[in-house]
């Protein structure tokens, strides 16, 4: 990270923001005016705090309205240790962050299983409980009267006589959060968070442990919030449960990210730089006479941003910023834009002859699945050997997708076992583990990570077996070349055509390097040309070493693709065999067309 930063320092996209940050640092260190110093302190602090919120709220898409819990706990832990026991806040910071981490685990582990508004409600309730506790334990917190922090200026107390020192400290905090966010954005965790925000089931199928990723984001976010809270409280020198644990704190942090741009590193900075001065000037302008007016304005801004620019101000100015960057000169070795990477195909063609003997790659034994009183699958057994392509066909409602969901670990069968590579899949609790065992799948109804680029979508899959971004990127590019999406790699996934979305589904699954690939109706809705391409692609995939099970309605495709076909109807296996045998089988014709039809 640091190395590539200095290597590219000559590029406008790198030196321009660096210069802006340097200028801000100079302002913080040198400006004598107390009013402006206070303003800058608040902007830096809120940019950092909102940035911390943005990790869980923006990147992971879990809207917390309980960050006041981390803020309050952080502020109080260090302040109580300082005021009652004399522990210098420089050390107290670590205690605060430690408590916040523990709190994040306690709240996160159960609450992050909840979706959408339920997570929000739960976090709201947690902050409320902590506020009540802070009022209740008077001996520790001084209750509603508030806790005063003794004014003893010293660096290790994080209390300074000069406001310049405070502003520089706040600047440091903001940069810390910014750098952490930028590193996160380019890391495996960052990709996983963005993916699960858009489609958590698909992310799970690509090997993302969504609960662990969300908790990691929550813990990081909570610890950084607590850190910021300590700095602010050593500046304000007074704590009070009704302001430090207030839902207003949580709303403000969320608001700044939302206004600037949710899930972007720079969004919280833009939000704070606009909203904090606005609030301060409104307060100074209307005076103390009208309480609450600046919150009225904040609230209106929040509503208007949601309705008219949901991607925030960053998205509005993005183009102009890029145009400006193009105008600025480049310096040194980083002068030229990077050349287009060449993509080498590392996939080797095994020309694998299917091994029909020996241990099958996957074997289902007598699986049944009931939904309530309805039996959807009953007693289905089959086996697939490495290198085979098995087609599964059956009339609508036969139970094909349910069968897929059972063998890929999404549903547990009511009866029976599925053995994959010697492992009993039905004993596995979490879908992402199935992916790590080497089984990839696509969904009949495509589930792209709509707001990520095509390349990033596939990288999420590649991260299944890779920790490093560079390698994951390489794998993703290879796979994209294989499925023929390389020219669309920078497009947003939601802008693709249906045919390309289905290719993307396959590409993501392929990037996990699966031993077995389950394809659920990847050809539905494609035109004849596209079907031919898809048939060729699936054959290529098999030749590169994967075993494939296809569920398909398009008969032409399934007949020319499959080496073996299994027919199911009404949840039962009708027959299994070579394509030409199956198609002539009277039972199959009966299952599709009913009695009274005979093959001429």
């Amino acid at each position, binding site marked *: 990270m640091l190395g590539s930063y200095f290597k590219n320092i000559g590029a406008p996209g790198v030196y321009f923001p660096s210069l802006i940050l340097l200028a801000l640092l100079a302002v913080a260190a040198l400006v004598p005016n107390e009013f402006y110093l206070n303003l800058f302190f608040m902007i830096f602090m809120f940019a950092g705090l909102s940035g911390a919120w943005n990790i869980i709220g923006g990147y992971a*898409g879990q*809207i917390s*309205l309980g960050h006041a819990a981390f803020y309050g706990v952080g502020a109080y832990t260090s302040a109580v240790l300082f005021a009652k026991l004399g522990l210098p806040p420089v050390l107290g910071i670590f205690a605060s962050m430690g408590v916040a981490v523990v709190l994040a685990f306690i709240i996160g582990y*159960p*609450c992050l*299983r*909840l*979706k*959408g*508004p*339920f997570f*929000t*409600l*739960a976090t*709201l*309730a*947690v902050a*409320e*409980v902590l506020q*009540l*506790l802070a*009022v*209740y334990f008077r001996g520790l917190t001084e209750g509603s009267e508030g806790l005063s922090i003794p004014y003893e200026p010293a660096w290790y107390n994080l209390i300074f006589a000069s406001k310049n020192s405070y502003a520089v400290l706040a600047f440091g905090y903001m940069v810390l959060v910014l750098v952490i966010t930028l590193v996160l954005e380019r890391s495996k965790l960052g990709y996983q968070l963005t993916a699960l925000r858009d489609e958590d089931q698909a992310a799970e199928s690509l090997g993302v442990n969504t609960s662990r990723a969300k908790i990691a984001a929550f813990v990081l976010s909570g610890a950084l919030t607590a850190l910021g809270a300590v700095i602010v409280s050593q500046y304000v020198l007074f704590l009070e449960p009704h302001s430090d644990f207030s*839902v*207003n704190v949580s*709303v403000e942090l*969320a*608001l700044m990210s*939302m206004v600037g741009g949710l899930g972007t590193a720079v969004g919280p900075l833009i939000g704070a730089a606009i909203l904090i001065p606005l609030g301060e000037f409104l307060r100074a302008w209307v005076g103390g006479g*009208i*309480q*609450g*007016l600046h*919150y*009225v304005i*904040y*609230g*209106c*801004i*929040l*509503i208007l*941003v*949601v*309705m008219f620019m*949901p991607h925030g101000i960053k998205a509005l100015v993005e183009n102009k910023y890029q145009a400006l960057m193009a105008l600025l000169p480049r310096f040194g070795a980083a002068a030229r834009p990077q050349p287009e990477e060449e993509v080498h195909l590392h996939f080797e063609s095994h020309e694998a002859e299917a091994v029909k003997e020996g241990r099958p790659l996957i074997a289902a034994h007598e699986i049944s699945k009931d939904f309530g009183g309805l039996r959807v699958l009953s007693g289905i057994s089959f086996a697939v050997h490495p290198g085979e392509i098995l087609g599964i066909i059956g009339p609508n409602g036969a139970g094909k997708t349910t069968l897929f969901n059972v063998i890929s670990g999404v549903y547990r069968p009511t009866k029976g076992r599925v053995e994959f590579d010697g492992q009993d899949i039905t004993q596995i609790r979490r879908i992402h583990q199935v992916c790590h065992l080497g089984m990839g799948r696509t969904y009949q109804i495509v589930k792209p990570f709509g707001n990520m680029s095509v390349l990033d979508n596939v990288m999420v899959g590649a991260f299944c077996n890779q920790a490093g971004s560079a390698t994951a990127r390489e794998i993703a590019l290879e796979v994209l070349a294989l499925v023929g999406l390389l020219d669309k790699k920078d497009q947003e996934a939601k802008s693709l055509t249906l045919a390309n979305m289905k290719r993307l589904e396959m590409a993501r699954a392929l990037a996990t390097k699966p031993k077995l690939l389950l394809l659920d109706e990847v050809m539905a809705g494609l035109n004849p040309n596209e079907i031919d391409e898809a048939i060729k692609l699936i054959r290529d995939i098999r030749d590169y070493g994967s075993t494939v099970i296809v569920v398909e309605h398009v008969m032409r495709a399934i007949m020319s693709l499959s080496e073996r076909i299994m027919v199911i109807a009404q949840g039962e296996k009708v027959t299994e065999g070579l394509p030409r045998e199956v198609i002539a089988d009277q039972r199959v014709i009966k299952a599709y067309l009913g009695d009274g039809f005979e093959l001429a």
Partner: protein
Amino acid sequence: MVFLQVLINGLFLGGVYALISLGLTLIFGVIRVINFAHGEILMISMYASFFCFSILGLNPYLSLIIVIPGMFLVGVLIDQVIIRPIRNAPSYMQIFATVGLSVVLINLALVFFSGDYRSINLAFAKQVVHMGDIGISLSRFIVFISAIAVAWLVWLFLDKTDMGKQIRAIAQDRDAARLMGINPNKIYMITFGIGSAMVGLAGGLIMPLYYVFPSVGAYFVLTAFVVVVLGGLGNMVGALLGGLIIGVIDSLSGFYLDPALKEMVYFLVFLGVLLFRPSGLMGMIGAEEMGLK
């Protein structure tokens, strides 16, 4: 005997919670939006009732004929102006929009009415009927009865009338309902209106009992969230039951534990329900959509 008195107080308090929660749960069940500004609708209706009394001299029970239709209109307005444009947006957008509305309304009240606590001094509100050792507050009894009556009336409305059937159809499957020729926008608008009118009733009925101040809604709405989640979001009977349970918990823990901790007890119940049975006691409408099943 003391226990019985505490229990009855709890049930009556539960009536207040239930009445506030019924509107919230109806709106969620049909529109699938958790209205974070629900408490502020309560706050507005309490102020409306207060000013009807202090300026027009109207008895709060009489002023309901103004407050209820007024709140219906407020609900329709919120739905059409704020919710309608973001109906199909991701749920976090709706959270942000209604949170924003809540912030605006609380602080507008602060600007216009200041932070003073105001109340209505009504002799009737203090009347207590004694039955043996048990005292029954008449005004609280009215709230309790109203909660049950409203739950029953809304159930009748949803079950028997054409409009009610349309609302239930939309709640079950909006696309299928649209194909049957139901105009979803109209249904959403009316549902939001009815939900808000129910809060209007609650606000008018509790005005003789409670102080009104700008953030009064925030206090009640948190309890209402607890109630509806406990009962099962979108479920009317659940909201009634949940309200009564939380009222009793509130009253018992306030008496036997510590009044300062009673909220904590039911917030812990809330977290417990969210964790172990997020679809609530009576089951939740739209649980599949929320990924809870």
